[in-house]
């Protein structure tokens, strides 16, 4: 029972929401505009830094979030102005590199005074305001089969806020997808020169997409660090890769794809690992090996999912035929 609660709990865990947000942002980048952003984690990290650092210095919650968004937007502009003319694979590399640079600089000893260096920022330094804002009473609540703390860390309150954000972003995305703006973005995805020849401002649209997706990424970063701590290494390449996996698993260029993908990935991961923990006695293979085996299974499952449903869970198979 607890296992099932745990597994299903991942469906709406804050981490799932954070990844869903990041993937929605990435969906705007890649699914709509065709920007191969391999550095979504960079946006997340900057968002998280922007939020946590200002919180640490006592700013109020709203301005902290605003600052985080601002930071991500500035980063997107800095990144976008020179790089948006690059071909997709090259853009991928530049964004990946830029995100790594953000992380490496953030964790470097010379930045300790600002970012906390490799130690990052401890949760007690930046989560209190958010937790205090909660209208819920202190303590723990149980809803159906799930029991979580109301306000602290991995809490109901965070879940509510995180999923509200996801819903908001998904709604925006939905609006955009079916709008002329979305159409221009999709046109850019297919062939930017064609769009250019029709008088659409490709650079502006790409930049808008990069910024908007980056802002969603920054929100994702905040949601990601709220239940834990801010550690630059925890928002590294792995996170970007997971985000991509989520996006393509759910189906790129769909509204619900990123959300569903996130749920599937984390539920799958937890399901496998939890089941392994209880079903294999450590006498057969060591605990280390059990956990490793869990990851192996998840890796293989991911491969199989893509192999057997390459367009993603919600994707359109027809689109796949024109992938080139």
């Amino acid at each position, binding site marked *: 029972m607890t296992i099932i609660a745990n597994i299903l709990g991942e469906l709406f865990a804050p981490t799932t929401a954070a990844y869903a947000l990041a993937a929605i942002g990435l969906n705007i980048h890649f699914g709509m505009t065709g920007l191969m952003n391999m550095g979504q984690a960079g946006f997340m990290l900057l968002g998280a830094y922007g939020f946590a650092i200002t919180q640490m210095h006592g700013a109020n919650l709203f301005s902290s979030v605003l600052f985080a968004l601002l930071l991500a937007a500035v980063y997107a502009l800095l990144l976008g102005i020179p790089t948006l003319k690059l071909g997709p694979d090259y853009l991928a590399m530049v964004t990946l590199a830029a995100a790594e640079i953000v992380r490496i600089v953030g964790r470097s000893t010379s930045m300790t005074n600002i970012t906390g260096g490799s130690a990052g920022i401890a949760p007690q330094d930046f989560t209190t305001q958010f937790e205090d804002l909660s209208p819920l009473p202190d303590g723990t609540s149980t809803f159906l089969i799930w029991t979580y703390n109301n306000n602290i860390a991995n809490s109901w309150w965070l879940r509510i806020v995180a999923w509200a954000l996801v819903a908001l972003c998904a709604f925006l995305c939905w609006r955009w997808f079916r709008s002329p703006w979305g159409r221009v973005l999709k046109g850019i995805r297919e062939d930017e020169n064609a769009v250019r020849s029709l008088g659409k401002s490709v650079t502006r649209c790409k930049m808008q997409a990069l910024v908007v997706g980056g802002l969603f990424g920054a929100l994702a970063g905040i949601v990601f660090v709220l239940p834990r*701590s801010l550690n630059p290494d925890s928002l590294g390449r792995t996170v970007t890769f997971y985000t991509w996996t989520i996006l393509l698993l759910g189906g790129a260029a769909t509204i619900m794809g990123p959300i569903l993908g996130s749920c599937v990935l984390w539920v799958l991961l937890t399901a496998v*690992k939890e089941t392994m923990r209880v079903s294999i006695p450590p006498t057969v293979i060591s605990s280390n090996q059990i*956990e490793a085996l869990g990851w192996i299974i998840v890796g293989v499952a991911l491969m199989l999912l893509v192999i057997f449903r390459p367009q993603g869970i919600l994707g359109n198979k027809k689109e796949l035929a024109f992938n080139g």
Partner: protein
Amino acid sequence: ADASAQADDSAMVVGALLPLTGTLAYLAPPEVAAIKLAVNDINAAGGVLGKDVTEVEADTSDGEHADQNTSAAQSVLSKHPSVVIGPAASGVVKNVYKSIVAEKIPVISMASTSMTLSGMDPYFFRTVAPDAVQGAVMGDLIAGDGVKKLAIACFNDEYGTGMRDIILEKLQSAGVDVVYGEKDAFDPAETNYASIASAIKESGADATLIISYDQATPLIKSLASAGVDTHKLYLVDGNTVDYSKTYDAGLLKGSKGTIPGAHVDDAFLEALKGTGTDVSDTTYAAETYDAVILAALAAEQGGSASGETIQKNLASVSGADGGEQCDSFKACKALIDDKKKIQYSGKTGIGAFNKNNDPSSANIGIYAYDDKNVNVFQAMQSGEVPSE
């Protein structure tokens, strides 16, 4: 409240958060074994409050998998533990402790040595002394050996730079010049040590201090091939291990290392192996073992396996307000049954928890490498852990 209420009349459940996969996975086997051993020992002595103690584990992975950190915590939490042992690394502790202590369940970390964790939360304890302690010992060791120019190869990680700063302070007062690495630290994910090695070689240092995890394995070899004297290395707990299988004999002869905790005897290692886990060293095993025993004793003394009770009694069973010394669960339980105050002195030789929930005193073992590249116990330095 819900969770602990349930735990009140039920048996004690020890939750363990261990780095079973990821970059710290090499540390896990002794910890796993130590938990098993402790649970076995407790149950052999009749369990806690008459019931057998059970154990649940989850894999926190490493700091790069922060999502796994929290989901592991959630996994353990959902099984209503009375106490959570772990996580090992300081960074991971920060990622998970809040959601656990919010449930009023004590967290006892066996290996997180960052100084920023001191007194972080009333429910957070550790059975290992913070880096300040080891750093001080190491600094004296280096100065006392007459080193004039020291190079420091330190990795940029909370543990690495934190420890380095303490050592630097010590060295400075003793008049040792740091010719490399005073500010420079390398990336924990570094793979290519050639350039660091050549920089150290060029710096003309007469001894080298390496603060790292198992990055030391390739680093030492790079140093050796760059021509740095590998008989004058100083290693810390992250990398003071038996290198007899790793290098040709004699490479490290004369180098020294420090490891917190009392020197555990071979019997303990044998006992660990007896749990069926494949262990080759005892790094952090004693700390893990003691953490479990302390928690069990606290439950026993408080008469309940709830987190709150354990938290309340942990300091007292560790000897914070005196009592009769005892060194095993069985012996201590007997004393508690006799309604006596106890003071558990375990495998690590740490003192009672202080007001920061750090060990009030600790031991640092000094080791030297012999010509087989095995770290041989030399001496033990003990003292009080600063609590300011």
